[in-house]
């Protein structure tokens, strides 16, 4: 211990040119963490915020009381969806490189989270995703063409050209609009859940935010209100170790896991292996049942790794050690679920490869279809008028005037 105060600036364990080092990660053995009763008092759940709930062991075998006992069908469906997300991401990265879309964000390495949780929740549950939860659209079966159209700001963009690529929403199937501003959706989810309780409904609100984003004020407001009103919600922190170039220590992950904020605020906090489809599914089921039966909110920290760049505007080789992902002790979520299925004898490498090929091809087809509805470069397919819609429900006079002005100018050009 130093004799004088020191400004601690938590650094990354490894930067370019250095050897990847994940020794800071505290892991638990698969199956070693007990599953408490759904309505256990918060104090009896505290250990969950410090240990790591894992079901799949290194051999792909499901272990322990958290094993959700999913049907083979469901497991295969989960794997398929994860592969679909990955195929989608790959395709979108390619078309971004071709200059077809202005921006993109992958979720590589984190697919298990959105897919397992998407499947574990009910249709009536309202989802408030971050920008890295595209998997939720797959779990709820939004045609990928629609997502592509949003990225193209074309005639079938559900945002009508207003938003950056990837900022989807889906009103019919309860997936909320994405904001560029981090964490703002988290208190909104809590408010949505409060309304659910006020109305006497049992729909949950479920939200996701990055570990870096938990530093935002809104996160605190969300945890406070969720706990005070016992809002039926699940707050997910996706700890993928990085926030653009900053390591999770800078967000406050060095001395206590993000899940530990839960008990600090008076709610359960669960730290889960974010690359373990079964574990994620199980903790989500537990939290959902708890919330749905009046037990209030749960905080879930998913320990995972951002295998991709932050976004297409980012170049992680400038700040991360080379091949860091290969050293990540929790592996790759797709590989791990695949191993489990292969181990169960219900999946083979051939089926796997075939599926990937099929998915890749279907993404190409979908992309062709999406292109047929227009592209950003060609200019918007919406009338320029539409730019003035939806600022308000009814267009006020001053916007009518601005719209007319713009139309006249475009006519004169």
């Amino acid at each position, binding site marked *: 211990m130093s004799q004088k105060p020191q400004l601690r600036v938590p650094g990354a364990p490894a930067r370019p040119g250095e050897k990847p080092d994940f020794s800071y990660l505290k892991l638990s053995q698969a199956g070693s963490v007990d599953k408490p009763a759904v309505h256990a008092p918060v104090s009896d759940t505290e250990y969950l915020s410090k240990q790591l709930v894992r079901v799949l062991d290194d051999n792909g075998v499901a272990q322990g009381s958290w094993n959700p006992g999913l049907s083979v069908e469901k497991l295969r469906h989960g794997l398929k969806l994860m592969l679909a997300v990955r195929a989608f991401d790959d395709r979108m990265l390619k078309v971004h490189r071709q200059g077809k879309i202005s921006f993109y964000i992958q979720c590589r390495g984190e697919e298990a989270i959105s897919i397992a949780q998407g499947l574990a929740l009910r249709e009536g549950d*309202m989802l408030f995703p971050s920008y890295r939860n595209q998997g939720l659209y797959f779990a709820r079966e939004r045609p990928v063409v629609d997502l592509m159209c949003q990225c193209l700001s074309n005639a079938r963009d*559900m*945002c*009508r050209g*207003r*938003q950056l690529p990837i*900022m989807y*929403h889906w*009103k019919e199937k309860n997936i*909320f*609009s994405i*904001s*560029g*501003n981090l964490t*703002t959706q*988290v*208190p*909104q*989810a*809590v*408010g*949505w*859940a*409060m*309304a*659910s309780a*006020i*109305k006497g409904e049992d729909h949950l*609100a479920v939200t996701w935010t990055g570990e870096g984003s938990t530093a935002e*004020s*809104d996160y*605190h*407001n*969300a945890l*406070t*209100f969720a706990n*005070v009103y016992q809002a039926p919600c699940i707050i997910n922190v996706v700890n993928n170790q990085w926030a653009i170039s900053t390591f999770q220590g800078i967000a406050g992950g060095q001395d206590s896991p993000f899940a530990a904020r839960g008990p600090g605020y008076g709610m359960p906090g669960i730290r889960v292996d974010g690359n373990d489809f079964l574990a994620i599914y199980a903790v989500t089921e537990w939290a959902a049942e708890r919330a749905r039966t009046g037990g209030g909110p749960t905080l879930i920290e998913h320990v995972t790794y951002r295998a991709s760049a932050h976004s297409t505007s980012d170049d992680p080789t400038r700040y991360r050690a080379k091949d860091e992902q290969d050293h990540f002790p929790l592996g790759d979520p797709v590989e791990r679920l695949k191993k489990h299925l292969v181990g169960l004898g219900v999946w083979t490498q051939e089926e796997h490869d075939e599926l990937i090929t099929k998915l890749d091809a279907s993404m190409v087809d979908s992309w062709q279809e999406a292109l047929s509805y227009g592209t950003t470069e060609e200019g918007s397919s919406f009338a320029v008028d539409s730019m003035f*819609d*939806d*600022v*308000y*429900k009814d267009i*006020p*006079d*001053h916007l009518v005037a601005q719209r007319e002005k713009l139309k006249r100018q475009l006519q004169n050009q």
Partner: protein
Amino acid sequence: MAKMNMVQALNSAMDVMMERDPTVIVMGQDVGYFGGVFNCTAGLQERYGEKRVFDTPISEAGIVGTAIGMGVNGLRPVAEIQFADYIYPAFDQIVSELARLRYRSAGDFTSPVTLRSPCGGGIRGGQTHSQSPEGIFTHICGIKVVMPSNPYDAKGLLIASIEDDDPVVFFEPKRLYNGPFFGNPKQPASTWASHPKGEVDEGYYSLPIGKADVVRSGSDLTIITYGTMVHVCEAVVRDNELDAEIIDLRSMLPLDIDTLVKSVDKTGRCLIVHEATRFSGFGAELSAQIQERCFWNLSAPIQRVTGWDTPYPHAFEWEYFPGPSRIIAAIEKVMRESA
């Protein structure tokens, strides 16, 4: 009809709306059991239960953030921000979220939140209980900005705000809660009982947002104002027997520019009065629009009378407040310059 002060009128508006519409809920710091530090929500929790009228943690950002979510889930939250000076912590949720949600989701998600907040000075509140931040909010597209100047309007406009499917920031000049104020703190306090706009319908009625009120017609000069300053301007015009037209904006965004232009085109002179600080205050937008539209009919430069560009100092409250003498001086200037 009943005599109501502004607090009672606001309370009545919420009461009427909670009665009519089960989705209306009221939330904010101390609004529940206690009925709000200014009493505006008195009795509502008892009447509608604590699921519909509840206290919140002291977090303005949390209030607005959760209210947005409730609005998305089919409720109509009416949230109180205890003082306008304390609305800033919620600024991001208001600007980036409340105001933008409809647009960014192409109308698929909306949240009809009403934010009520007492504003303005003249109650020895010092620099953090006196501010008039409305100007800032008028720069935010996607929200409406309203400020009533009397009980009758307050009730009608608050009902309209709650019913509005767009978010509304509703500022209440707290100096007017208990009576009109004519700008002279040494005068005995006046009450709403003797003011025509203190007569308030006890039932449901609403006033359109975006319509100014010509509170006095005249031909020499147009005075554009809102909130507390409406009464100060009225008193100045009355006491000095001026032939001025006074317009109470009632809503700043949307702005009833047509009514303003009509008046200024007629009088050829324009004075803008607000309590907020001057630099980039709402008076600037008013001045800019009026000179754009009425340029050829203006016989003197538009003048602004406003708070100084300093915080509201506790000891110099009345030197800060843009009271009668400053208004008279400005009127004289406009008249002189156009003579």
